[in-house]
């Protein structure tokens, strides 16, 4: 078990693409850490660079206080679970799990012990003699995890751990993964493009774009106070409303409405972007007024899209049974303290 420390880390591909760009990051011992971002943001490259599968171009990586920047993959003490699990099809479950020990030429007995101990903790004890092809997706994932655990590595890296599972299994696996990580207390870094997965699992999240970290924080921080409009747009199962407007007398004027703004002492006429999550907008007497154009049923709530003056679309969620009729007028206001104001030029949170 070990903390991970990255300083000034860059990974540049031969074609000149800076997949990881001058990145500083510390991950605490025992932390469950998510690298989140859209495809091509560099999150997988960063994970692979930590593992040693990609060579960093500059900067340093240290694990548990020791510099491993130039250490070979196999000597870093890093276990990795790949998106496709990478189980060896010709080996049984037991042989797969014990493979790290076989590589180190551990005794047959030690290999068997490792396989049975690790598999018992992951509910695989009955499956030891099977081949990977005879297992379900969830079981395959657990075998891959068991093999990684059997390595007794300092750090566990997971590449899109849930994306190869179907929707129902994914939720189960998510809960399982979180409990497993708590029990092992193993420093774990995982990569995902699914913000819900990151919010649900991680102690802290790094939201990445273009090889850099846009925001680093707890799931709460990242969800409630996205640091810029990119993060605001990316986090949340329904996209955040980002409305351009201007600041006036402690108010922001957007979509034909004046909304109470947090105290930022902005100069009158400053161009801003107001960010409000649909979940934090509720029907009100005063506020943003528009025509109901679309109602989408989300189960417990419905997402209502309002067409506001100036062709601005605003989304809000309403509880079930309170859906407005399409074509009627509706007014909504943000819950107190939930309006975020971004600088229109820098896109940063003010």
């Amino acid at each position, binding site marked *: 078990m070990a903390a991970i420390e990255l300083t000034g880390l860059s990974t540049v591909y031969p074609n000149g693409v800076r997949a990881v760009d001058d990145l500083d990051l510390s991950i605490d011992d025992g932390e469950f850490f998510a690298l989140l971002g859209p495809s091509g943001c560099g999150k997988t490259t960063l994970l692979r660079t930590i*593992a*040693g*599968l990609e060579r960093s171009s500059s900067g340093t990586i240290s694990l548990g206080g020791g510099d491993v920047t130039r250490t070979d*993959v*196999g*000597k870093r003490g*890093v*276990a*990795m679970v*790949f*998106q*496709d*699990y*990478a*189980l*060896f*099809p*010709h080996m049984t479950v037991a042989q797969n799990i014990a*493979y*790290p020990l*076989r*590589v*180190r030429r551990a005794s047959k007995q030690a290999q068997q012990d490792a396989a049975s101990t690790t598999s018992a903790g992951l509910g695989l004890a009955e499956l030891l003699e099977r081949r990977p092809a005879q297992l379900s997706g969830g079981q395959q994932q657990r075998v891959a995890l068991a*093999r990684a655990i059997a*390595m007794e590595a300092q750090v566990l890296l997971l590449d899109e751990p849930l994306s190869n599972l179907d929707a129902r299994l994914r939720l189960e696996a998510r809960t399982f993964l979180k409990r497993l990580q708590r029990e092992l207390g193993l420093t774990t870094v995982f990569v995902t493009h699914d913000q819900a997965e990151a919010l649900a699992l991680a102690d802290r999240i790094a939201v990445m774009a273009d090889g850099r970290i846009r925001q680093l924080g707890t799931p709460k921080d990242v969800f409630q106070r996205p640091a810029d409009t990119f993060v605001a747009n990316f986090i949340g199962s329904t996209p955040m409303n980002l409305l351009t407007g201007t600041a006036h007398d402690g108010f922001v004027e957007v979509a034909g409405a004046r909304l109470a703004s947090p105290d930022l002492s902005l100069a009158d006429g400053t161009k801003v972007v107001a960010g409000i999550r649909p979940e934090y907008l509720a029907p009100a007497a005063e506020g943003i007024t528009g025509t109901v154009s679309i109602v989408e049923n989300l189960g417990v709530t419905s997402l209502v899209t309002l067409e506001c003056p100036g062709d601005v679309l605003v989304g809000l969620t309403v509880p079930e049974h309170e859906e407005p009729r399409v074509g009627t007028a509706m007014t909504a206001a943000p819950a107190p303290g939930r309006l975020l104001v971004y600088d229109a030029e820098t896109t940063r949170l003010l």
Partner: protein
Amino acid sequence: MSAATNRTRDTSGLGVARAVAFVSPALLLIGLFLVFPALWTIYIGLTNYTLTGPASVAPAFVGLENFLGALDDALFGNALWLTLVFVLGSAVLGQNLLGFGLAWVLRSAKPVVRRVVEALVLLAWILPSVVVAYLWTAVLDRDGGTLNALLGNESTAWLVEYPMASLIVFNTWRGTAFSMMLYSSALAAVPPSQLETARTVGASGWQTVRDIVFPHIRGHVLTNTLLISLWTANDFTPFLLTAGGPNHESETLPVFIYQQAITNGELGYSAAISFLLLIVNLVVALLYLLLLRRRS
């Protein structure tokens, strides 16, 4: 097969008559130049047919005499042994290992390097035998040969002093391209994540090949070994380099058959040996197929 079953098998809707018309030229040529000579060889293997003399005009049926004679012929035993050495040395070991080694190393090489090496290896394979045999004679010649010039050595007649070793090196060079290409495509089918998992657990290159790569490509290894073994066993190019000499030291079976038939004029005897070579080939092929079936 009855006409009714023919019609039900006529899935392309071409009509049986037309289909037969399309394949008949090919069948005719195969029959004329492959099937007939093969059967004819078996037949004359049972006669005392010769190139000249009375038996060339009126060969007599001698039964299994040629075959029994071969078993007593030390030169036949010698040829059989040399063929075995040639196949093991240049195909099973030489081409197989070098081909796999190249494919494995070139995987991670720069694209330019890979293309250049592949082109060179392929060149050795596609050049006509007569051309490469001449080139290798020029390389291995005692007086002014390229190898001796490079070594600063004027006394070694490689093809005379080390005929089998020369042939094995030559044939390894000549045939590696096929193994290299076959293994290249086989290796491309090994999932990269499995290789990377092996790297993260600290497996050495050899452990990775043995534990991860080989089980994936075992079928390819058997198929490749079968093909290159048969090609090498039947290869006649050694004749162009050493003509079986000196003193039968490099006389593999195809060369022995040629010498018996053309030099000695013993057509019946050489046909019988050809048939024996065919049997050896069949046995080798069956062995591989059995292995292949058992593994899968």
